[in-house]
């Protein structure tokens, strides 16, 4: 066999770099949506590679629900410093204070859906014409239909039935004033690919992904971390477990799994043996069969 072929991780990397450079070339004012989770960290790492030796030529934007893991915020601030990048923060708390959105009520209330308004407001206020996200098609069935360049109308809405066809590697980012795009450079990566690549490149990720002792409560089939926002039910009890998180969202809805994986090698090995999908521990996706599709239509990540 000839040596002139790429292995799959190099091919995925090359594809993502290509997409990031297309975003830079086709849009005036793009940002990377940065949540502090592994996927947005990966996108940021790929952007660093895409434009080296120049700095990443666009800001990072964080939609801050106020329900963060403290570790995530610390990690975010460090990476911004290291990259010399600009950080834009959209605050859900401010959206609530300004009366743009109302806090959900009831025992499973979260700020997950409230992020949509804050995100769209921040996009409008900062005149952003393309928001680069770490969404992957393998995560969820609505995401499986996403384009690399995904159009949003002037209300920020996604119309999955009327998407622009995307052929070969020719991306069409043309849009009218007020509309914007979402770009997904790691569309074709799976959770396993992400971990294999993070391991290969030795990319720094928040400590939450590694096994650690934590106070948790068993709820909806996973270990929900104790925090100032947690409201205990009568039958529930806080225990200390050695856990790690497979995905990071709000501290109120992100469930951990019991694990001893405290190195990237062990995490990759653990993920390879996992028999449940990563979003299986996210209560935001458990609300209905089309929970993700419905949120995405409105403008969610």
């Amino acid at each position, binding site marked *: 066999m000839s040596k*002139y072929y*790429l292995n799959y991780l190099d091919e995925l990397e090359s594809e993502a*770099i290509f997409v990031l*450079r297309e975003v830079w070339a086709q849009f005036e004012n793009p940002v990377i949506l940065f949540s502090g989770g592994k996927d947005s960290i990966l996108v940021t790492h790929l952007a660093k590679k895409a434009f080296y030796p120049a700095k990443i030529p666009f800001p990072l934007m964080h939609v801050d629900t106020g329900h963060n893991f403290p570790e995530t915020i610390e990690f975010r601030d460090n990476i911004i410093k290291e990259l010399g990048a600009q950080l834009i923060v959209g605050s859900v708390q401010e959206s609530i204070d300004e009366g743009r959105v109302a806090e959900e009520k009831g025992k499973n209330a979260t700020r997950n859906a409230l992020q949509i308004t804050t995100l769209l407001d921040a996009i409008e206020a900062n005149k952003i014409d393309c928001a680069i996200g770490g969404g992957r098609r393998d995560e969820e069935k609505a995401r499986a239909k996403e384009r690399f360049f995904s159009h949003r109308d002037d209300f920020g809405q996604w119309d999955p039935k009327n998407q622009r*066809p995307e052929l070969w590697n*020719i991306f069409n980012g043309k*849009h009218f004033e007020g509309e914007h795009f979402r770009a997904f450079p790691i569309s074709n990566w799976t959770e396993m690919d992400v971990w294999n690549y993070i391991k290969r490149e030795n990319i720094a990720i928040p400590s939450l992904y590694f096994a650690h002792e934590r106070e948790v409560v068993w709820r909806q089939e996973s270990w929900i971390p104790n925090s100032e926002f947690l409201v205990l039910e009568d039958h529930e009890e806080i225990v200390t477990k050695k856990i790690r998180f497979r995905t990071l969202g709000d501290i109120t809805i992100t469930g951990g799994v019991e694990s001893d994986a405290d190195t990237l090698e062990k995490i990759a090995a653990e993920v390879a043996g996992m028999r449940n*999908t990563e979003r299986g521990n996210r209560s935001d996706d458990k609300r209905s069969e089309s929970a993700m599709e419905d949120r995405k239509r409105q403008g969610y990540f």
Partner: protein
Amino acid sequence: MIDNNQLLRFTTAGSVDDGKSTLIGRLLYDSKSIFEDQLASIENTSKKKGHDGVDLALFTDGLRDEREQGITIDVAYRYFTTPKRKFIIADTPGHIQYTRNMVTGASTANVATILIDARHGVIEQTKRHAFIASLLQIPHIIVCVNKMDLVDFSEDVFNNIVSEFEEISSKLLVKDVRFIPMSALLGDNVVNKSENMPWYQGAPMLHTLETMHISSDINKVDARFPVQTVIRPQRDGFIDYRGYAGRVASGILRTGDEVTVMPSGFTSKIKSINLHDKELDEAYAPMSVSITLEDDIDISRGDMIVRSNNKPEPSQDVEVMLCWLNNSPAKPRAKYTIKHTSNDQKAMIKEVVYKYDINTLDRNNEDSNLAMNDIAKVKIRTTKPLMIDAYRENRTTGSIILVDDTTNETVAAGMIV
């Protein structure tokens, strides 16, 4: 860890009736690529719908409308990995009214799988799928003769379908065609070898996909480097750095190579090739790199760096096989934006040479209207030259899309003849 494994992209075209969803479900299920929570959710839905056992077809469920109607509308991408390869499936609908989605899914595929219901043999839809695979120059075709359990696993039925298909494929530009008799429902010859068809000597589908030679699918002869953007760091240590960023479309570029910048025609030598902070001696398709040249030349997005002894043809008159993708038909003599690699120009469709009847594959010279899903040979005139290659030699520098400037929608995709 599967470090040196390649990525294989394949497309499946078909409707629910062909058992396409069942086939994909079977492939994922038997290769242990389905997670327990996915399985539980599907068991649940199967029960609600009153099915016996698990309906594997539910794995490919997509958007709410698709679930309600039980059909695939848009292309959905699915992923699985075996110890030998990583796979991306572009799962597309099969009906004629979704030709454009099939074309989309086929555009990046190494392999097309075409499903045939063993009871019905080669039908119009089969011809259409084979035609699209040849039009998009998918290098390999696997013909899955499915539902063999419903024809008593008969070798004769299989052989007849093979010869029927070969009759069509002999008229099309397809290189590598393989036939596999299978029952996706029962799992015969999908991942595991069938015990019901001892007469079939070949490999099951997954093994075929795992071992197919795909390194030669990319053109390694004609070095083409469309410039996406210019990197100028303007910072200490890199004040004079001017890197041309792009993805090698085809061929191999090495440091020291004599290169020509198209369309300006300026020549220089490659000084360095970089991927992040690594210096490379060479770059080949589909690597994303940055290139610096020995001389200061004016180069910007849309230009193409090529080896001086092997250049594409600059042309303002382009003949393409065009697939119309949009609800509104083509407007005669209207201007569109043509996108070719990183180069955007204005263009006009000057002439519809002939149109295909997608059912019979006959050419029609009379009808010059282009409506959604139509495939036609057209002549396009552009305002400035494009650096083109024929699509059959180069899928990247041989492809274009048309964008309607009044809606910004992608309205057509074309393969340069």
